[in-house]
């Protein structure tokens, strides 16, 4: 196999991994603040349909992404109000949010199903995109792919270098202690949940405008759940989330090629390979209980009453 054949594999790997990066990094920040939002799948679906509709009717994909992010935030605010203000159970509320998002997106998107849209094309960067080999390899992606890399660096910096990120981690660790020091626990958790919502919304919009430029009911096909699993198995470390997402993307692409070559394995089995491979590899990486102990937010999923 020569380099020319590898380039499309690499490119489609990155393309397939990008929605997971958005959704998982958003969820990672949410969980670091101590909130477990299982509604990622639902928020992705709503983001997908809103991004598609706004992108199609306005003709601007960027507007579509903004709308998708807002839709994700709106949905996450419902979750936030229920779990942070009203102290509802986070697991149950998150599951409900996923069901709600799936139903809502199907309802809103009924008349848009199957319509074509001009998907996000590669960004042409002067000079860089024209470099032979490296150009097509690294500088032929759409806007959101670069955005996902930028998001990774931003999250990494925020959590580990900034004071606000330290406060957020502290709140996920011991909200009552943070409260005693005088940090705004509920406000911070709201922001973290909203950030997760925005990221999930964009991840959804990426599916319907870039990965497969059309709206299909239930098109996230479990990626929201994989994103959730990624966060846990990546032991809440952004770099591992990134690697896990690319692994998922890589196996997705490889199994497509394998199907194309007419391998005598049932295609259902090949389709489940990416999910299987990602989880197996991450489970092996995170076997060390110490890493989990040090990185898992201690108050994850627990409600906090400031007055108790």
């Amino acid at each position, binding site marked *: 196999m020569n380099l020319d054949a590898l380039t499309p594999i690499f490119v489609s790997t990155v393309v397939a991994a990008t929605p997971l990066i958005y959704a998982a990094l958003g969820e990672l920040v949410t969980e670091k603040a101590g909130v477990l939002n299982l509604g990622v799948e639902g928020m992705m679906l709503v983001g997908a349909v809103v991004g598609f509709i706004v992108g199609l009717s306005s003709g601007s994909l960027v507007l579509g992404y903004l709308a998708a992010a807002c839709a994700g935030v709106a949905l996450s605010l419902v979750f936030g109000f229920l779990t942070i203000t009203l102290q509802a159970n986070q697991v149950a509320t998150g599951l409900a949010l996923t069901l709600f998002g799936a139903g809502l997106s199907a309802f809103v998107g009924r008349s848009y199903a199957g319509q074509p849209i001009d998907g996000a094309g590669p960004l042409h960067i002067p000079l860089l995109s024209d470099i032979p080999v490296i150009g097509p390899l690294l500088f032929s992606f759409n806007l959101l792919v670069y955005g996902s890399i930028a998001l990774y660096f931003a999250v990494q910096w925020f959590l580990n270098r900034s004071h606000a990120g330290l406060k957020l981690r502290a709140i996920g660790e011991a909200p009552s202690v943070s409260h005693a*020091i*005088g940090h705004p626990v509920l406000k911070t958790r709201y922001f973290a949940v909203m950030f997760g919502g925005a990221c999930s919304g964009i991840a959804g919009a990426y599916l319907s405008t870039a990965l497969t430029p059309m709206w299909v009911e239930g098109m996230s096909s479990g990626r929201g759940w994989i994103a959730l699993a990624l966060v846990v198995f990546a032991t809440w470390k952004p770099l591992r989330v990134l690697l896990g997402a690319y692994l998922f993307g890589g196996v997705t692409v490889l199994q497509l090629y394998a199907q194309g070559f007419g391998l005598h394995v049932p295609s259902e089995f090949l389709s489940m390979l990416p999910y299987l491979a990602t989880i197996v590899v991450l489970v092996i990486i995170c076997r060390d209980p110490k890493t989990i102990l040090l990185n898992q937010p201690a108050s994850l999923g627990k409600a906090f009453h400031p007055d108790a």
Partner: protein
Amino acid sequence: MQAATLKPLRLALRGITKRYPGVVANDNVDLSVQPGEIHALMGENGAGKSTLMKIVYGVTRPDAGTIEWEGERVTIDSPAKARSLGIGMVFQHFSLFETLTVAENIALALDHRDPPSTLDARIIEVSERYGLPVDPRRLVHSMSVGERQRVEIVRCLLQAPRLLIMDEPTSVLTPQAVQKLFGTLRRLALEGISILYISHKLDEIRELCDTATVLRGGRLSGTATPRNEDNAGLARLMIGSDLSVCQLAPKTPGEIMLELTNMSLGSKDPFGTHLRNIDLRVRRGEIVGIAGVSGNGQKELMAALSGEMLSAYAGAVRLAGQPVGLLGPAQRRRLGLSFVPEERLGRGAVPAMCLADNALLTAAQSPGMLRIGMVQRAAARRFAQQVIADFKVKCGGDQSAASSLSGGNLQKFIVGRETILNPQLMIAAQPTWGVDVGASQMIRQALIDLRDRDVAVLVVSEELDELFSICDRIVVIAQGRLSPSRVPAETSVEEIGSWMSGGFINGNESAAEVADAAA
């Protein structure tokens, strides 16, 4: 002091009242602190000291009463407000984030931000100046209670407070370190910083404090000049009656109950202490005390004895001659081991469960508790009620949650539970840590009573006074090694104190002594 009439009071509380459902935690309490004064706040557990301090630090708000800060009436509605006024607090129940480093913990409480590099330098500078060594890069979860307290104190000092509230600060320090801390506090007071010193250690209060305010049952029971009082007088103010004294009648110990032979054990915790060549014998009818600054292997030794951490081979730990090194906690308990762990909530008791259920946790094996595998609720409740009655545990009854009890009362309950189980060997880790005088006395007496009933007792404590008053023999743990044993009458606080900083670990001579002690 003479300036008191000219300068306004640093802090004045007037008529502070705070009610919780069912209890009045503070009832019309007054308190005034002069600038540069070391002021003791004394009282038993549940006397309302913590509530009063929470009000000063802005964690809770009073139902009635006023607070004046440097002559001006203020409302302290948040800890941030308290800090901005210049009030710093070292908590008794530490307010540290376990998975963060020391430097991160300190950065979280500082309102102004420092880049990590200069913060590290400032932490080291302050910690060295005041003799409180801490490593800014270490993770808090791997630190002992004593080390965590140092972090808390350093964190407060970095905020340059004008009033420093210290809640039981010396309970985890060596005698030498206590003297060093007192030096620090006196220097701070000279610099004009007022110190509110919460304690029930009468000797310390008499040595350190200028004035004392005593609370009893939520009310002001009096003020005193500690230097002019004796311990009995202060104790009377605090508990309202005279204090009984522990009596240790001479007794010849019986056969060996617990035996550790040349036990070494690596710690799984990357920052833990490895146990090295531990030799220890505890006989029936004697109390052996293990002194030492926390973080020197106590945690690991306790885990190895209770069975939470298994030894390398069965013979490393022997209970009444039987090798138990590979047996778990439940099996060792069945052989007559009772264990009072250092952490009351979470290890000694389940916070959210009621006392009766907590009693069942270790008493389930005793007769009558289970019938064909089913819990006998009535028996469990009777058992809990017996513990509550025998040990005068102040609580709402056997159905109240463990977390609703004050530290001292919960400790009485746990010690009582373990005592009533008729152990052959009792191991107690820091049994009176953060427990008031009355309850401490009771817990110590319970241990002595066990000894007099021919039970072998092993006590780990950081309070030397306690060990000297109740132990037949004292050994010291330092850097994961155990010193030779000493009879209290034949040693001194100075010798034990120097051993606590590793003084007995010196070449071959001490190795010979260790062998000597094991014999």
